[in-house]
């Protein structure tokens, strides 16, 4: 949030101030690397495997200075007027089929807000030029007025530019989904499990911070109060859109509670964020499932009264397993296990689709987010560093509450990702037209 605000504080005299995140030592001149894929149906990852990844966030002003963005906006305007002409003239000329017309009408209504903003921006830019002539006037009162007016305009331009960028950047398919969060302890034994529990709690706090629901699905604790593995279903506005940046390997460096000699350990845990598919978008054949319960042996029914209501579901073709024993009702456990299973299978499907696309394009990017080391929590220095954007914040205790500090980190990731997406889009648009 703070960063977004910083971006908007731009007009200061004649110069725009843009914020630079961090300049890594090996900065290369082309500041952003893009991977390309189909903007219509994508799974977007921040590619992080490469150490050459340069973390610099461009301001809206800088982006608008890019020829490719200007070109893209021109192209959109042309498309819009062409579609509009077709829609309006259709009655007399009738050269389009009904389907074509419908597509064009949809296009018009889709593009309308963008075109509207572009025109407003142009109008504001004209105003600025006008005020600049007034500023050369002899009357000091008039000059002061013009100065004021100009500042207002620049602010409006800034807002409109941001709005245009937001409109241009496409949403990811799964952005509107709910999700299943999975945490798993990695290297480091009990210490890794303790850290896993802390991170899981952090996301529970984060969900609460955003007013999302957080429904426990699996929870396997260790003897010392740590977590081997846990999952939860999260739903609420924009939950996937935000949580997806948390997926990957989180590393902790500290002296564990279990350590007798005061040595520093490095342990890891993994976060997976799986979009929860809707019933319609993803179906599973019931014949492919084996459902295991305690009641499978013996006679069942009225013959038996067992309180073991745990349910385990195996997807036979893939061997993927989900289980739940959170609830006293066996049916509820089955529903929850099913939810977890669906999310797991769906994410495998998405992953396959994504990697296929990347392979086709022969692009070298890191494997799926979950195997990449994304963040380090260093207790001795009381800092958290996100390796994808080279951002560091301090105060681990507050960070682990899952409130403002995590939000700040998350927003930055969001902005970087948006910029990456924009660059991809422009690149593609360039290729199309050349």
């Amino acid at each position, binding site marked *: 949030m703070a960063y977004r605000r910083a971006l908007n504080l731009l007009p200061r005299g004649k110069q725009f101030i843009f914020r630079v995140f961090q300049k890594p030592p090996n900065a290369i001149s082309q500041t952003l690397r893009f991977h390309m894929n189909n903007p219509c149906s994508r799974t977007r990852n921040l590619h992080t495997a490469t150490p050459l990844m340069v973390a610099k966030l461009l301001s809206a002003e800088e982006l608008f200075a890019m020829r490719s963005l200007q070109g893209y906006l021109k192209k959109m305007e042309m498309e819009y007027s062409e579609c509009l002409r077709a829609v309006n003239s259709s009655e007399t000329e009738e050269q389009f089929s009904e389907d074509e017309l419908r597509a064009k009408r949809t296009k018009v209504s889709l593009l309308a807000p963008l075109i509207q903003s572009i025109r407003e921006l142009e109008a504001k830019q004209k105003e600025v030029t006008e005020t600049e002539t007034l500023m050369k006037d002899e009357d000091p009162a008039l000059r002061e007025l013009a100065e004021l007016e100009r500042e207002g305009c620049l602010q409006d331009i800034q807002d409109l530019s941001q709005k245009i960028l937001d409109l241009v950047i496409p949403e990811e398919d799964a952005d509107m989904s709910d999700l299943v969060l999975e945490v798993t302890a990695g290297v480091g034994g009990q210490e890794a499990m303790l850290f896993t*529990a802390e991170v899981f*709690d952090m996301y529970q706090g984060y969900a609460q911070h955003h007013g999302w629901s957080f429904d*426990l699905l699996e*929870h396997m*604790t260790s003897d010392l*109060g740590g977590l081997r593995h846990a999952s939860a279903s999260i739903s609420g506005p924009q939950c996937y859109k935000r949580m997806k940046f948390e997926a990957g390997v989180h590393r902790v460096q500290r002296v564990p509670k279990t350590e007798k000699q005061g040595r520093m350990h490095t342990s890891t845990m993994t976060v997976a964020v799986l979009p929860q598919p809707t019933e319609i978008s993803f179906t599973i054949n019931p014949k492919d499932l084996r*459902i295991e*319960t305690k*009641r*499978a042996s*013996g*006679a*069942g*029914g*009225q*013959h*038996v*009264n*067992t*309180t*073991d*209501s745990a349910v385990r579901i195996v997807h036979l073709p893939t061997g993927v397993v989900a289980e739940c*024993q*959170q*609830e*006293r*009702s*066996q*049916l*509820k456990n*089955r529903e929850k296990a099913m939810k977890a299973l669906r999310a797991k299978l769906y994410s495998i499907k998405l992953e396959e689709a994504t990697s296929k696309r990347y392979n086709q394009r022969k692009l070298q990017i890191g494997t799926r987010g979950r195997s990449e080391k994304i963040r380090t929590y260093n207790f001795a220095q009381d800092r958290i560093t996100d390796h994808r954007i080279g951002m560091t914040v301090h105060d681990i205790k507050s960070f682990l509450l899952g409130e403002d500090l995590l939000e700040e980190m998350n927003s930055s990731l969001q902005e970087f990702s948006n910029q990456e997406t924009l660059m991809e889009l422009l690149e593609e648009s360039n290729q199309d037209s050349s």
Partner: protein
Amino acid sequence: MWRRCLSAGCRRFGLKGIWGSHAVRRCSAPALPAGRITALQAGDLWRSHFVENGVTEPDHSTHYIIAYLLGAKTIESLEQGKLTELLSREKTEQMWQLCTKRLSRMPVQYVIEEWDFRDLTLKMRSPVFIPRPETEELVELVLRDLEETGVGADEQRTCLEVGCGSGAISLSLLNSLPQLKAIAVDQSQAAVDLTRENASRLGLQDRLQVYHIDVMKDAETFLSLCSSVSALVSNPPYLFSEDMMTLDPEISRFEDHAALDGGKDGLRVIRQILTLAPQILSSPGRVYLEVDPRHPTLIRRWVEANVEEMHYVETQQDITGRPRFCILQKEKSNKDHKLDLD
């Protein structure tokens, strides 16, 4: 096959049962600890005590009791760290009381006096039958049909449950379908009382009528109360009388045998329900029954031979793949068929 498995089980359980009942008199609860202990320690202590005394499901039993004591439903959903906090004196005593009950082989559901069925938490009290997970699926089947056919919402639909016990089936249906009304009957006053209590706890009492009727003895009163219902649902007593000897002490000592024992072939109440069904159901109303896996073929044959107006629709399996549910439908009589043709 079935027979053989069952009788083997019978011998094993039978022995255990007898031994268990002696054991109860001999074994007593472990002494209340002098100092304060954590929930985890209390749990470990009782768990091993349960194991020593042959109490079934020692882990789950202690877990559910601890969870209940600490205000959660399952130990998995308890807050981190609560298990390792020291219990207050009061809680420790309560834990000892509840676990001592379990030591006498009282089912956990009666010990903590509640259990979950689908979306509902229901009050449980001995000797009223404790709903089994299979019955959650029976409700699923009924709901599936009622939701499918329930497009015309003007029509007031009623369902009838025979042998309502704690009220689990009727209350779940009412909870899921806000337009539905239900009639529930049971031969046991304790069951009728518990169903009413659960209904008012859940705020569903306005759409539910509960009657104390024995359908075996008082068919006439039964018929006078219910007519043209859309669905007749029942989890009737369906155990074969000989299997009554093989039950765990949790069931045989604490649950109402009248809710379990279905006579020699387990069909005593089922036959009565199917005989009365045509006079109760609207056309085309359906009967949904939970039964023993040996029953579906027997029921189909019996209905085809004895109840002209009922048509056997299908057998459904429970999630373990056993034939567990029978669905039958009231057929239009021959006379109606002719009218249709005109």
